[in-house]
């Protein structure tokens, strides 16, 4: 671990730490806000239902205790740099000393909520690979201090004072307003809001949705008491409702995209990538380029209509849902050419645009239909049960599924070279998944009875940090001898290359 070229003498954790620093003086407020968020419900319950008893002061006492705890944290929390590591002291009675080598930090996340921005501060999280919690979480630092800390990590602690040696920050991708509107159009983020609204309305009043339905009809046709409502009118107003819902959904999606991605900028300083985004709350995440474990290029149907794609990466940082702290989206939306240029720039040796794609035998297309059949059968049985012979119409899905499977099978391909292995899948929605060979962790070759019958095998390639939702890096329907050769050559390559992550 210790760098022989380090200018500073090897510092033990207890050695004097150059210039210990504290959190921002207002940090107690944000710690308090954070704690109040957890206790807000009990406090409200106490306030509302505690009335009439003589316990009205309890919530205030609770808040006072939290204030004291927050101040306590402020006064006991210090951090400083000792050589190539960060040292964090906290606590007075129960003291904790945490030493984090800069080389172990995979990801630096700065988060600024609207309130943070009022005070000019930011919350900082330093993350290493694995683990469910950040290595260090500083709530909150002055924005300058936070950026200085980020620079420290970038230089691995070697005095960032020499601004001369600081490489220029180059913008790799910036999203103008129009792109963010497109991003909103293709994403389904608004769905959550709309569904939640519908559920809430339905909870409040069972008839509200039905009434809305009828008033839309009335508004459309101008007349009509209920007895005038024919089947045609019902269909038209249902369609109108549908269009309305879709428009609403997209509008919310665009709004959310604006809130989250306004001013999106992917930039590169030296080997480090930084993403900044957000309208009210701002996020700034930065990670070294080599921390990227696997890549996903995605093209949905709407993407294709707008001639756009999205480029996501996995980092080894464990991330809980809804916490946007890891570097994940390199290009939320960009033209295919821009995505390719980005990959070429970040993986210069992979030869992304000259990959030798090898098609997988399309004769196995029927195996892609198999998972659909039980589902269609179940729906058909259920539908026939309810509406009789009309339910058999569901079976009409099968030819379409077969067609889609056929097109998918035709497009399936993989590419392998000494640097990278890539898999291409999908037709209606497409994705490309690839990883550098250095980042592969384990290989698995599987053969089901069907595989043996068709003379094929599936090769699974495991990488760190791949989420449950991201597509798997696996080559399906690979002819058996080809699979064995690829498997053998990959395991040979992995053995000769040390893990770099």
């Amino acid at each position: 671990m210790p760098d022989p070229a380090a200018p500073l003498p090897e510092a033990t954790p207890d050695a004097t730490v150059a210039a210990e620093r504290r959190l921002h003086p207002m940090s107690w407020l944000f710690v308090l806000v954070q704690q109040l968020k957890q206790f807000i419900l009990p406090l409200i319950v106490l306030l509302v239902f505690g009335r009439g008893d003589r316990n009205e002061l309890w919530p205030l006492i609770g808040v006072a205790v939290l204030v004291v705890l927050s101040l306590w944290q402020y006064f006991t929390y210090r951090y400083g740099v000792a050589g190539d590591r960060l040292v964090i002291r906290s606590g007075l009675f129960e003291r904790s000393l945490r030493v984090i080598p800069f080389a172990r930090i995979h990801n630096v996340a700065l988060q600024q909520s609207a309130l943070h921005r009022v005070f000019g501060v930011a919350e900082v999280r330093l993350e290493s690979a694995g683990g469910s919690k950040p290595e260090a979480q500083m709530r909150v630092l002055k924005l300058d201090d936070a950026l200085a800390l980020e620079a420290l990590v970038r230089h691995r602690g070697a005095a960032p004072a020499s601004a001369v040696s600081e490489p220029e920050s180059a913008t790799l991708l910036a999203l103008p307003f129009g792109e963010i509107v497109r991003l909103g159009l293709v994403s389904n983020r608004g769905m959550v809001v709309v569904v939640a609204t519908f559920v809430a309305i339905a909870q409040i009043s069972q008839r509200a949705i039905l009434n809305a339905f009828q008033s839309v009809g009335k508004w459309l046709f101008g007349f009509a008491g209920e007895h005038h409502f024919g089947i045609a009118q019902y269909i038209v107003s249902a369609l109108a409702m549908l269009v309305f819902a879709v428009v609403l959904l997209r509008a919310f999606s665009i709004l959310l995209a604006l809130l989250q991605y306004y001013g999106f900028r992917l930039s590169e300083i030296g080997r480090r990538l930084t993403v900044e985004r957000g309208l009210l709350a701002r996020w700034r995440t930065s990670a070294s380029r080599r921390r990227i474990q696997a890549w996903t290029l995605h093209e949905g149907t709407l993407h294709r209509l707008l001639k756009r794609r999205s480029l996501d990466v996995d980092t080894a940082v464990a991330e809980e849902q809804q916490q946007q702290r890891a570097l994940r989206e390199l290009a939320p939306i960009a033209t295919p050419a821009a995505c390719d240029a980005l990959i070429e720039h970040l993986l210069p040796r992979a030869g992304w645009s000259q990959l030798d794609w090898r098609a997988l035998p399309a004769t196995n297309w029927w195996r892609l239909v198999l998972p659909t059949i039980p589902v269609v059968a179940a729906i058909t049985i259920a539908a026939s049960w309810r509406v009789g012979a009309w339910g058999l119409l569901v079976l009409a899905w099968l030819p379409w599924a077969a067609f889609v499977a056929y097109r998918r099978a035709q497009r399936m391909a993989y590419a392998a070279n000494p640097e990278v292995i890539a898999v291409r899948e999908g037709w209606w929605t497409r994705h490309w998944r690839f990883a550098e060979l250095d980042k592969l962790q384990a290989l698995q070759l599987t053969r089901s009875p069907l595989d043996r019958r068709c003379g094929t095998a599936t090769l699974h390639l495991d990488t760190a940090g791949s989420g449950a939702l991201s597509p798997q890096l696996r080559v399906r329907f690979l002819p058996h001898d080809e699979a064995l050769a690829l498997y053998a050559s990959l395991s040979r390559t992995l053995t000769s290359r040390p893990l770099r992550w």
Partner: protein
Amino acid sequence: MSESPPAVELPAVDQRAPSGWHALPDRARLPSMLTPVLPFALPGMVGGFVLAGVFGLWFAPPVLALVGAAVGAWIGLKHYRSTFWRLDEDGLAVRRGRLWQRETRVPATRVQHLDLKRGPLQRQRRLATLVVHTAGTRHSAVTVPHLDADDAERLRDLLSRQIDADDDA
């Protein structure tokens, strides 16, 4: 890997194993059979209690539990017969399954840490279960069940030698 391939002196290769692969020792048959017994016997018993409750078949729980146990033991025997491992210059490989065959390979350079587990029955029969952890996600823990204890320790030592070499993060 700069050092010479770790040659492991091993027990005579079983005829059942494909060439170059090692089967589990005979002593592992009983523990292998016992492992899946409970996961199959319990659902059998639960199903039996349901039958007993609905149709009043008092004998259903023990009978179905026994059937489940027998199925479990049979599956365990199958597992035992179709589990092979090998260690070569490319790292550790484990082959499992007969109908659904899967061969997992962990290159020695990718091993993060190793677990060696020994249950009471395994200790009595000089067996051990080796778990190889990688930084991956879906195959982050590769298990070789009921190895000969000496083999397991040798595997652990050979594979962990690689971890020390990997110093820079």
